[in-house]
């Protein structure tokens, strides 16, 4: 077993164990943290395949931004664990069916003759830049699909904002323009006055 294999099996084991952890963890925060671990080790496997752009983007986008917001929400939820586990056995057959379907699909795809050649990794020269190659392909060969995907994302983003935007009345919010416009003369009045007569406390 070469060093490459050792690293692969290490990352693969961590990924699978972390995936199991996501499902079995009692606490939702622990589950989210297990998911972070799964993402990190999956990024490690991609790195082994010399897909450094995808690996680092996985960390940057999913671990650095998406999961932070996930944790943010999950930590603030008031979750009743007993209630959460109530319908477990009722939904178990459905979940098992889905899981079985996915395993079947993966065996079908990964075990077929057409995809078998992919398992041989292509070794590139040390000056090969995965990022540059991806950028070149995306902006030349696949420029239209890429732009269409970007527009769809933009529409989804606008829609998400439009769905949650509501005008609320009676909200105490600051008018920043007014605050910035405030000058010393508006707020402060300097008066010159005579000193008060001495108070006699006796």
């Amino acid at each position, binding site marked *: 077993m070469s060093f490459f294999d050792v690293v692969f099996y290490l990352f693969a084991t961590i990924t699978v164990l972390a995936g199991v952890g996501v499902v079995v963890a009692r606490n939702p*925060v622990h589950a989210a*943290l297990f998911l*972070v671990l799964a993402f990190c080790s999956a990024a490690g496997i991609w790195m082994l395949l010399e897909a*450094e*752009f995808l690996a*680092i*983007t996985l*960390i*940057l986008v999913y*671990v*650095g*931004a998406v999961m*932070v*917001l996930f*944790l*943010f929400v999950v*930590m*603030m939820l008031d979750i009743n664990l007993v209630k959460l586990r109530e319908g477990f056995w009722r939904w178990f057959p459905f979940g098992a069916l889905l899981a079985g379907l996915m395993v079947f699909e993966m065996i079908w795809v990964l075990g077929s003759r057409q995809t078998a050649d992919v398992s041989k990794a292509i070794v590139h020269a040390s000056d090969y*830049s*995965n*990022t*540059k190659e991806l950028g070149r392909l995306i902006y030349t060969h696949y420029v239209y699909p890429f732009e269409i995907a970007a527009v769809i994302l933009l529409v989804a983003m606008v829609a998400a904002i439009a769905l949650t935007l509501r005008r609320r009345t009676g909200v105490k*919010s*600051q008018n*920043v323009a007014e605050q910035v416009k405030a000058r010393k003369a508006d707020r402060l009045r300097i008066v010159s006055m005579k000193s008060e007569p001495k108070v006699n406390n006796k």
Partner: protein
Amino acid sequence: MMEWLQPIQNLLGAAWLPLWTVVKIMLIVAPLMGAVAYLTLAERKVIGWMQIRIGPNRVGYFGLLQPIADGLKLFMKEIIVPSGSNKFLFVIAPIMVLMPALAAWAVVPFNAELVLSNANAGLLYILAMTSLGVYGVIIAGWASNSKYAFLGCLRSAAQIVSYEIAMGFALVTVLMAAQSLNLGEIVKGQHGSYGMLNWYIIPLFPMFIVYLISGVAETNRAPFDVAEGESEIVAGFHVEYSGMAFALFFLGEYANMILVAFLTSIMFLGGWLSPVPFLPDSIVWMFGKVAFVLFLFLWFRATFPRYRYDQLMRLGWKVFIPVSLIWVVVVGAWMQTPYWLW
């Protein structure tokens, strides 16, 4: 230049490469820890002078042994784990703060030859590592089982996610100008016959400001230190920590400050390049620039009052992100004209 190491290399055989890498890592981390220790002293001295005080001057000549005394004190103290807290997460949170702050140094070049890993995707790697730092803060706040710590961690999570976007766009303009993600190439792209006029701070000046201020916000430094907010939420996310666990948060914060200072000098201030054409390029320039940026950090802390939280969010989302988006387009259009001189 490493010929004298050849006999050792032959002796060790296959074990040479991992061993030599560990030695190089130590050669980066050990001076970094020293720099962190003396940055705390520099901070107290500089802020002291700015406020017409003397600063620490009792331990050792000129207060020079103060960081060692502080470190010893923190080593001696007991680490108290609060009841009802999650012990495992409570203990790994400070490690999670320090780990990415140290890991990012792998791709930082000190001069044209001195770099641990000359990775092609260095800039992306730095972005990914700095985005991991927030986990330590979030886990610390949540695992402490304290409402002040929790408030601090929520503030910090929202703040870091917001400022990361503007920071990322600032770096996008740098990579457009340098046409490379390799940090060494970015510095070499700023080389030219006009000294400091060739640096990216000239065409990317608005992005330099955005990056510097976002860097202050990312490292939770004053005036963006709402995650700690001693006067409102009593030190925020690390309120329950004591002893060495508490010290690790500080090590992480200062290591991050030094990292941001290095990155600012690499991206915008020409790294190890000399500011005037008649002087040679040297690592001394690098350290000088880093010291200047670090001084700015201390100066900000001594000068500005803490931001109110809504103002902080407004600055991130409504000022920095639009400005950086516009500047990406401006640089892109500018580079297509013959007036792009960098």
